């Protein structure tokens, strides 16, 4: 973020510092959990980085077979790397895939190597995984080169959603969206993918209200957008969703296929998909380390709270979640420029001064996180079948985006309450954005909330409430707060939820070459400027 606008809210730096330090305090125990546990998906990611794609004829990925076999035979508390490369080095397996196939048919044996064998296995594992990370680094360089060559669009980036369920219908729609002005295309996932504990394979044509996230779909779509980027002379970004039971693996695939942004929230899976909290915290940390390395901007999901809770009453929970997401992101190695914190225009339009309250909330986020590429999301909850009214609300949403200088603008659809977007809905939506930004895009210059006025007071109030809530969270513990329904009114106890059985606490000899390399990369420099290859 180059331009940092002069402050309009005059937030008290003491309060801001306090908020951040409370977030740190609340988050530290969670980080401890995350660094002392692994999950099946983290381990599968290690194998994916080492080059194990594909699935059996029933669609079950080889990485799942292999991790399951290791788990059955030696447990996962040591990580898959040592047992797997031990088997590879000692057995007569042509490669990882061959080993996985055998594991699938129950004909591969694993043990936990020790001593020299262990060292050997670890070295081999690290080398193999290093190749995957090097590929991620190359993808990142590719992106940087393309952006250098084609140019980066000015902020806010126009973010459009494609959701046909069929990758071959998505592609022309995404290209059309780019031609009409989208800077970012997000392919929504099929409902339910976040709850399946494997990543589907190949190009897919059958999703409900979205298209499956697969490595091949990623590849196809990125290639299509590269084509259109060249045509347009502007780098068009691709976004997908990491959240869910396979967060680490999808993050990995995104890095390997040069996706540019990923939905990745530290708590979304817990709250909105009833995924076990510990599973989520472990997975999100690993996936964010990968995103950091890959130069992928994460998008957090604070918008979701406001669809289940009231946007005025719960405004401060958005701020708290943003602070937590920021803390976890930085801890995982993401620089500010990759932390796309989310927030949304979800106040009931009937509320008096609703527009000015939106301005207050949006400006608070902008000034609290001046260097983050904030993602500003459109009205959904209070959209109705009155598409004319919907179009108007979207215009005012766009205006808040401009007045408060948001970075990523998710384009709202007039038919939000009716159906997943039609071609014409998107076209109308882009026309709306164009009008507002062409006509009033620089109006931040004229927007100076009165120092004692409603906007400033509201922003200060929300920040104050956020600090109070953080204090309570620090006292109770983050996991208890989540269990109590603090966020989005969802109560999620730490010992329940999906995917808990995929969580394993580290044994004494836990080894994960990916984590090792990623941590070294961070130690060596700043994640935004990785060494030319992560594998050394």
């Amino acid at each position, binding site marked *: 973020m180059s331009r940092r606008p002069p402050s309009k809210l005059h937030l008290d730096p003491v309060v801001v510092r306090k908020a951040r330090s409370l977030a740190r305090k609340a988050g530290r125990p969670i980080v401890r959990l995350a660094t002392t546990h692994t999950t099946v998906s983290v381990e599968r990611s290690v194998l994916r980085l080492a080059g194990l794609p594909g699935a059996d004829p029933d669609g079950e990925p080889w990485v799942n077979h292999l991790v399951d076999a290791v788990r059955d035979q030696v447990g996962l508390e040591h990580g898959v790397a040592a047992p797997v490369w031990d088997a590879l080095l000692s057995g007569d397996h042509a490669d990882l895939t061959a080993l996985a196939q055998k594991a699938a048919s129950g004909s591969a044996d694993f043990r936990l190597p020790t001593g020299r064998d262990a060292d050997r296995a670890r070295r081999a594992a690290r080398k193999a995984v290093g190749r995957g990370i090097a590929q991620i680094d190359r993808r990142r360089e590719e992106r940087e080169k393309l952006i250098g060559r084609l140019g980066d669009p000015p902020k806010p980036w126009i973010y459009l959603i494609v959701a046909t*369920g069929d990758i071959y219908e998505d592609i022309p729609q995404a290209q059309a969206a780019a031609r*009409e002005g989208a800077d970012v295309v997000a392919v929504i996932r*099929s*409902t*339910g993918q976040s709850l399946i504990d494997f990543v589907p394979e190949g190009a897919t044509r059958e999703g*409900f*209200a979205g298209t499956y996230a697969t490595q091949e779909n990623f590849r196809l779509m990125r290639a299509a957008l590269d084509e259109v980027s060249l045509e347009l002379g502007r780098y068009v970004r691709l976004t997908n969703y990491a959240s869910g039971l396979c967060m680490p693996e999808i993050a990995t695939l995104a890095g390997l296929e040069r996706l540019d942004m990923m939905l990745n929230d530290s708590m979304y899976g817990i709250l909105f*998909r009833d995924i076990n909290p510990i599973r989520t915290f472990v997975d999100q940390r690993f996936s964010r380390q990968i995103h950091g390395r890959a130069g992928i901007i994460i998008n957090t999901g604070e918008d979701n709270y406001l669809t289940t809770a009231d946007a005025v009453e719960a405004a401060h929970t958005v701020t708290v979640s943003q602070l937590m997401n920021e803390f976890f992101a930085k801890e995982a190695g993401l620089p500010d420029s990759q932390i796309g914190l989310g927030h949304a225009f979800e106040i009931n339009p009937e509320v008096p001064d609703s527009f000015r309250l939106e301005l207050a909330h949006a400006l608070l986020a902008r000034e609290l996180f001046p260097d983050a590429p904030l993602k500003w999301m459109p009205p959904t909850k209070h959209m109705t079948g009155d598409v004319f009214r919907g179009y108007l609300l979207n215009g005012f949403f766009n205006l808040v985006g401009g007045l408060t200088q948001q970075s990523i603008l998710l384009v709202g659809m007039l038919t939000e309450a009716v159906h997943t977007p039609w*071609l*014409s809905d998107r076209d109308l939506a882009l026309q709306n954005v164009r009008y507002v930004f062409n006509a009033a895009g620089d109006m931040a210059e004229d927007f100076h909330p009165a120092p004692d006025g409603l906007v400033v007071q509201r922003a200060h109030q929300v920040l104050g409430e956020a600090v109070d809530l953080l204090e309570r969270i620090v006292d109770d513990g983050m996991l208890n707060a989540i269990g109590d329904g603090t966020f989005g009114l969802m109560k999620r106890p730490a010992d329940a939820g999906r995917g808990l059985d995929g969580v394993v606490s580290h044994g004494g000899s836990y080894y994960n070459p990916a984590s090792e390399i990623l941590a070294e990369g961070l130690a060596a420099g700043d994640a935004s400027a990785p060494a030319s290859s992560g594998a050394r």
Partner: protein
Amino acid sequence: MSAKKPHVVRPYGDATGDGMVQVSFTLPVPQDKRAEGAALQLAQKMGMDPALVVHAKAMGPDFTFFVVYGRVSHLVDLDAVTVVEREFTLLSPKEVTAQIKSRLHRPLVVVGACIGTDAHTVGIDAILNIKGWAGEKGLEAYGEMTVHNLGAQVAVPDLVARARELGADAVLVSQVVTQRDAHVQNVTEMSAAFREAYPADTRPVLIVGGPRFDETWTDRLGVDRIFVKGTTPAEVASYLVHRLCPDPSPPKPARRTRKKATT
């Protein structure tokens, strides 16, 4: 039928009987004169005459978006309109509690869920949670109801198993995602599973709800009642009493009727 209230009406633009309507759509043709002609043809097939294409916008090289205004000659016969009339009396929470107590002599057990991959819980929560909806408290707040809200993305076999385990009198299912008719498929699967798992006379009452259902589709979906957008908890509670705690004295009330509207 009185002379005062017309039973046949037409759309109204700015004068009685003018028949004016607005239409918009996309045609997969490049924007040119032929495209406008094509749009007019469609408008005419929809019964608009005269029709005026007031807006035609190219969306890329292959599609054109149109806005058309015009007059339709169709008559709307209000007597022929079928509406699902509420077949039960709307009761207050107190009345609901009293009637369950006096007629069922035990708490009524309700199991609710979003099934399939649908994760939209706001609708079912509106009906079930204490917090409720539109100022009314949800079923959890009713003294004589035991509510189990299983949450989102519950698989049908799990739902059947839990319903059995909990002794459900009624199973409430919400479906919001309708792309590719997901809601129809999921509900059909659900009702079949219940029919298979239970003898006909012990099967719990099956209720579905969501913003895009058609209330008249109960038979097609194999459920007992469908609730649509704007449903309030009291309506659902009253229906449950009506179905599960019938007044013992008068003859059993007739099943829901489809009635012609009267004015």
